[in-house]
């Protein structure tokens, strides 16, 4: 048998593990190990093998070999694959009884973790079933159980992958066409009459994916039923199209309008093309077609009905985005491209918990492609000859999927950082090829920046800064030097400039300057980010100077809060020419400036300074106006250091010195008109709204815990309750788990209060956006307005759940006839998206 995959050498048999790179025995030299080596790292397919400690016993050894055979089979579409599969099924059949758990467990994970090899594993399951229907039944039952588990958990990516596996099982005669149709109907039944919603879209997506792979088999076995399912899908799509009519709220590129607001329209198009072509999918090797005679005699297994989860919120359902086209691609291969990118996307989702191995696997997916389906730069002798215009180029397809996920709206499946560090691993795995591929992809996106959604520009900028900082800060900035001639707010210029600012944050100014060509130096600040302390000696009158010097001395020599307050009191009480309010405002400003100066060295210093002066700051921030003044002083103090500004504001909200609404008021100040293209304002908005949401979620958890504790009437006096009752002043520092026996009514009342605050934040933010967008002086020019509108869309779709929850109020108070038509359109789009 030939199981040498591309990773074979690196990951291969156990023998290599105990020898270092010089061939010396590694065992017995524990000091040779790296200090924090991961146990079992890099041992593909065998958490069961003997570890470095002690000899593996024979049974374990066989088990690890068995599982490694299952993992590796079909890595490559070689002429011997058919024989390999046959041989493996014989081996498994023979050893199954002895090693049942290992075989089943490995098989289960192969289907889930290596989704591009689904044809291989369906065939293997078919062969096992053909040889012994008891074994087949066990495999099928297990996988069906896992499918139900993933359904209950709402893991739609796994559900889709498993449904594809079951679709192919029909072709191996392991389950009947009728069984599969019943499974499909579980997804299509709730969709039949329901209004378009994220839940329906998710189910239709899974149904279409299953139909794509089952079509050929169903066409033979149950053509009428197949047509009926196809019609059901088309009918839903018709309604969905009407409901989402004209909505561009989740559109990534506005220059090439996608075929619909999500991936479904394109998916349906692919399905129709495939149906018109005898349901033939020729992108990947289909080994089950070679074992026709063996499957004829096999036993088909019945399966219980599937149950869909109930009570999940709309946000729990996801539909993947339509794959972006970033390089030209031959139109006649659209189906192959879709099929391969779909498998790439599933792999990328399923292996999210190990980006390093995911990157390596992603780059070998082409191994199972049929001949001439795509060109592969990493294995080609002349990779530079690969031309995406005439043939599908594998690496570009991977990059397109990656950026599709990164830019997915309203939000990606995983954190942005996953797609960043995955790209870093892809480049580390194939430095020459992937560096060029990713660079081309980024440049092609940036070239279209003018029509790219604002939030996506921001995401790509974050991505690029971290990516570049991982490769010695090398990037060909000169290619973008023409942006220096564009106006400040031009999308491409903004992108480059903000990326450079992010790079300065990740490193330091001089380092970044050293990598910039002369022509681009104007894009970074001339001076190192610093604070902007107001009371420097030159510009103030004598008595102000006296207060400032006295207070400065006091703080520097670690004076107490009381001492500082006393200084302010003594000095300002002599200012008889100004009224009380003005004096209070002056004292407030003086204190805040000095506290900020005290903490200006690092974040730790800042936290210490704020914590120390918290009582004074809270006393000074006694009214909404006072809070706003504090926030304004912070903004002014950190004018030239947006990162510090954002974090200081954030901490003041944490310590409840200012309120979330204070921040909203600060951000939408009229003085910011003309700077709506700056990224850091929106970073602050996002942080603030997220924090409010987080507080609500934490309180909900606390309430549940309190209710559970109240229900279980167990008197358990642990004695370490910290006696902190007043949750209204809680920074989110408090852990969500509380000592048992917390008062339910008390938590409930705080929660109600927090929910009121959450509502206020959402309504207030929307109100400000609409006011600015509906008036002429809210924005400086057309470009400024485009940015603001983009940020408005971002806000609405990100917090669509809260928008939907407060829709009535928003409609009557904010999105009135006075609101500009495009803002009302966004509101309508948000409601459709939130369903």
């Amino acid at each position, binding site marked *: 048998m030939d199981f040498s995959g591309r990773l074979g050498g690196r990951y291969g048999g156990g023998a290599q593990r105990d020898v270092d790179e010089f061939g010396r025995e590694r065992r017995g030299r524990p000091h040779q190990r790296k200090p*924090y*080596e*991961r*146990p*079992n790292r890099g041992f*593909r*397919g065998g*958490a069961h093998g003997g570890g470095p400690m002690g000899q593996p016993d024979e049974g374990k050894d066989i088990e690890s070999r068995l*599982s490694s055979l299952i*993992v590796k089979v079909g890595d490559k579409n070689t002429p011997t694959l058919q024989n390999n599969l046959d041989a493996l099924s014989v081996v498994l059949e023979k050893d199954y009884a002895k090693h049942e*758990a290992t075989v089943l*467990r490995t098989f289960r*994970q*192969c289907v889930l*973790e*290596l989704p591009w090899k689904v044809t291989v594993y369906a065939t293997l399951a078919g062969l096992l079933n053909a040889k012994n229907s*008891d074994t087949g*039944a*066990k495999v099928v*039952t*297990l996988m069906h*159980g*896992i499918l139900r*588990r993933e359904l209950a958990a709402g893991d739609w990516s796994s559900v889709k992958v498993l449904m594809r596996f079951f679709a192919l099982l029909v072709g191996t005669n392991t389950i009947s066409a009728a069984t599969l149709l019943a499974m499909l109907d579980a997804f299509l039944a709730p969709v039949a009459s329901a209004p378009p919603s994220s839940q329906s879209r998710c189910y239709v997506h899974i149904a279409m994916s299953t139909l794509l792979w089952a079509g050929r088999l169903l066409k033979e076995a149950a053509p009428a039923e197949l047509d009926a399912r196809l019609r059901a899908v088309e009918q839903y799509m018709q309604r969905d199209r009407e409901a989402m009519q004209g909505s561009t709220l989740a559109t990534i590129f506005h220059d090439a309008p996608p075929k619909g607001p999500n991936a479904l329209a394109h998916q349906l198009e692919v399905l129709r093309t495939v149906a018109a072509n005898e349901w033939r999918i020729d992108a990947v090797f289909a080994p089950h077609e070679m074992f026709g005679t063996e499957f004829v005699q096999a036993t088909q*297994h*019945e*399966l*219980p009905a599937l149950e869909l989860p109930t009570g999940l919120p709309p946000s729990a359902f996801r539909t993947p985005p339509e794959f972006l086209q970033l390089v030209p691609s031959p139109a006649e291969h659209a189906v192959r491209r879709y099929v391969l990118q779909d498998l790439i996307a599933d792999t990328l989702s399923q*292996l*999210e*918990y*190990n*980006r*390093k*191995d*995911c990157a390596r*696997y992603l780059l070998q997916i082409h191994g199972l492609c049929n001949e001439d389906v795509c060109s592969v730069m990493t294995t080609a002798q002349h990779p530079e000859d690969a031309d995406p215009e005439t043939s599908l180029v594998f690496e570009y397809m991977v990059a397109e999927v990656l950026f599709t996920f990164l830019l997915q709206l309203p939000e990606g499946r995983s*954190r*942005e*950082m*996953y797609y*960043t*560090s995955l790209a*870093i691993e892809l480049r580390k795995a194939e430095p020459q090829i992937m560096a060029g591929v990713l660079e081309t992809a980024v440049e092609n996106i940036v070239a279209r920046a003018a029509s790219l959604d604002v939030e996506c520009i921001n995401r790509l900028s974050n991505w690029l800064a*971290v990516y570049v*900082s*991982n490769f*010695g800060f090398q990037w060909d900035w000169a290619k973008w030097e023409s942006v220096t001639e564009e106006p400040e707010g031009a999308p491409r210029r903004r992108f480059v400039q903000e990326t450079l600012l*992010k790079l300065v*944050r*990740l*490193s330091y100014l001089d380092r970044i300057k050293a990598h910039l060509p002369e022509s681009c130096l104007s894009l970074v600040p001339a001076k190192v980010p610093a604070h902007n302390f107001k009371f420097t000696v030159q510009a103030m009158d004598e008595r102000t100077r006296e207060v400032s010097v006295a207070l400065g001395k006091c703080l520097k020599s670690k004076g107490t809060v009381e001492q500082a307050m006393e200084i302010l009191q003594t000095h300002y009480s002599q200012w008889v020419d100004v009224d009380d309010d003005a004096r209070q405002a002056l004292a407030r400003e003086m204190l805040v400036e000095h506290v900020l100066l005290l903490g200006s060295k*690092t*974040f*730790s210093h800042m936290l210490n300074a704020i914590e120390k002066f918290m009582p004074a700051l809270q006393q000074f921030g006694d009214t909404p106006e006072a809070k706003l003044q504090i926030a304004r002083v912070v903004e002014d103090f950190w004018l030239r250091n947006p*990162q510090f500004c954002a974090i200081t504001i954030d901490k003041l909200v944490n310590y409840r010195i200012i309120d979330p609404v204070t921040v909203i008021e600060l951000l939408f100040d009229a003085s910011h008109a003309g700077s709506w293209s700056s990224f850091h304002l929106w970073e602050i908005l996002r942080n603030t709204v997220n*924090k409010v949401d*987080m507080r609500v979620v934490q309180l909900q958890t606390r309430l549940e815990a309190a209710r559970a504790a109240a229900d279980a009437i167990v008197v358990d006096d642990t004695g370490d309750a910290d006696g902190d009752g007043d949750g209204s002043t809680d920074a*989110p*520092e408090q852990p969500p788990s509380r000592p048992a026996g917390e008062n339910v009514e008390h938590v409930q009342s705080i929660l109600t209060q927090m929910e009121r605050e959450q509502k206020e934040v959402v309504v207030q933010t929307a109100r400000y956006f609409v006011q600015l967008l509906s008036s002429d002086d809210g924005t400086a020019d057309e470009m400024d307005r485009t940015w603001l509108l983009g940020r408005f869309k971002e806000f609405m779709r990100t917090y669509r759940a809260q928008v939907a929850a407060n829709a009535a109020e928003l409609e009557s108070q904010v999105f009135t006839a006075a609101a500009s038509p495009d803002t009302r359109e966004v509101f309508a789009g948000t409601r459709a998206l939130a369903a």
Partner: protein
Amino acid sequence: MVSEYPVSSTLMEDAFTIVPRLDRPSTYKDHQYHGSTEQWDSDLSKTTTLYVGNLSFYTTEEQLYEIFSKAGEIKRIIMGLARNTKTPCGFCFVEYYTHGNALECMKYVNGTKLDDRIIRTDLDPGFREGRQFGRGRSGGQVRDEYRQEYDEARGGWGHMRAKQEEERQRQQDESYEAIATVPTGAELQINSRLGPSSPPRDSAY
């Protein structure tokens, strides 16, 4: 028919994966942790704190904030300091608000670069006063005590090696101190046919 083959619950629930998860604890352990291995494991299973190592001494808190906030909102960062000098010595603790964020950090940030160095993160049971200081004999981290390689971003040589180098330097300095005048070299004429002072090769002729 199916009901004859009930699936064992272990097969439905065990956490085995072919591809190892990056958000699982490594062999990292705090040697001064007071508690059993079980306690350690249970602490890690809900911790919000990460130990971060292999930092440059010059990496600032602000840079750490920038990269670690990619995995979630940060509650605080505690810089590791050399015991004697109170200057950064190449490690820190990052505390998030949720355990999930700490795991995401393990998955996405661990092993990426900051200041051109690969940062290493490990789940940690949580910061306790005193842990911010290096535990090496010289005040820095233990790993810098024995390091044999020169590492500019971590103070040059390891402490022991630095002492050796210092000693070498001292001996070197001492040995040369005595030599006040620069030796002119032997004036012996090797080839008498060239005369007392041979002209520079590339001139004259």
